[in-house]
């Protein structure tokens, strides 16, 4: 029933704060003289250096973390979830099991459940996510290889 990786939910962080954190790291690297190579030129050494600096772990010290995001357990009935979303105007809430994060429930899921659309309709991931132009970092394989190595 539980996921294999135990991720204990300790809070949530806004997208703006995370973007600032990444932007500060990019700025620091640019000040140190590391310039990202464009994929067309294909300077492999420079690209390797750039990617190596992106393998550093993030530092969340001083980052504002909301310590109490809305959350409920796996066994919370959808009726109760609907009441929570309707009365508080919540956009999303985390689902935990003994403190471990197991899922996210958004307004779209609750809507789909209430409207009786059968199975769970997956939230369409917007492909063109708005990212600050400073954060447009290019990787050879778009950072996908880090997903398996990183958390």
């Amino acid at each position, binding site marked *: 029933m539980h996921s294999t990786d135990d991720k204990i939910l300790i809070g949530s962080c806004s997208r703006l704060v995370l973007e600032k954190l990444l932007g500060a790291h990019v700025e620091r690297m640019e000040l140190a003289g590391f310039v990202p190579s464009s994929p067309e030129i294909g300077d492999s050494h420079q690209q390797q250096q750039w990617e190596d600096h992106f393998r550093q772990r993030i530092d969340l010290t001083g980052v*504002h*973390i*909301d310590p109490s995001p809305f959350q409920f357990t796996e066994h919370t009935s959808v009726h109760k979830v609907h009441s929570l979303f309707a009365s508080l105007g919540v956009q999303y809430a985390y689902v935990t099991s003994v403190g471990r994060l197991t899922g996210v429930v958004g307004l779209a899921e609750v809507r789909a459940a209430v409207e009786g659309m059968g199975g769970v309709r997956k939230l369409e991931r917007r492909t063109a996510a708005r990212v600050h132009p400073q954060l447009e970092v290019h990787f050879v394989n778009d950072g996908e290889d*880090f997903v398996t190595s990183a958390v």
Partner: protein
Amino acid sequence: MIAVLVSNAIAQRLGPSFYDSVTQLKGLPYLPDLRSGALYNMVSVARNEIRVFVALVLVLPLLSSADNGASACTQARWQSQLLLNAAVVWQTGCRYPILPPPHCWWFGRRHPQTASHIMRKDIYSVSLESTFARLNYILKNTSFDTYPIVESKGHPRMQIPTSNFVVFFCSFCLLCPPPRHHHHHGRQARCSPVVAILSQVFKVFSLHCATQHTNAIPHAFHR
């Protein structure tokens, strides 16, 4: 009165209302009202009923053999309770027996949907072990407003940053002990200086916490 009731029922059937459809057309967040029976998952009923039947088959012989004496009756009750708990544990998948409301579990034909049925399991979380590359990947490919911060078991605990204000005042209080009352032998004069300093520190810390809770609500989470 009957006309009002009938019209009300028809109006509820004909939903969503004009105002709700305007909200939907504008693409604003819209949550429809609950209808009776809308939130029940009929698929898993058969499996649960089999489990309940098995539990009953195991429990009923114990209850019927409870006529022999008081001790046997107590024992049977105890055993039946254990078996019932086991059945509930088996059904819900929990380690501890969490009983759902009886109308939907024991005699009812409907099994309510829970949050685990509708939740999304592809979570993009950030932790201390995440790299900047991972953060970049998450921010590029998703567009959520907030992201969960998680902590893996077995890794060092995330340190909560203490504000400079607390550090400054704590050090100030440690460096400057409170004045002693020489003439007046009160309760404060008799306690040791360490205790007095500690009490002062706790007082300042509690004051700081009180002010933080009253006026320092983070601006970013007012959505």
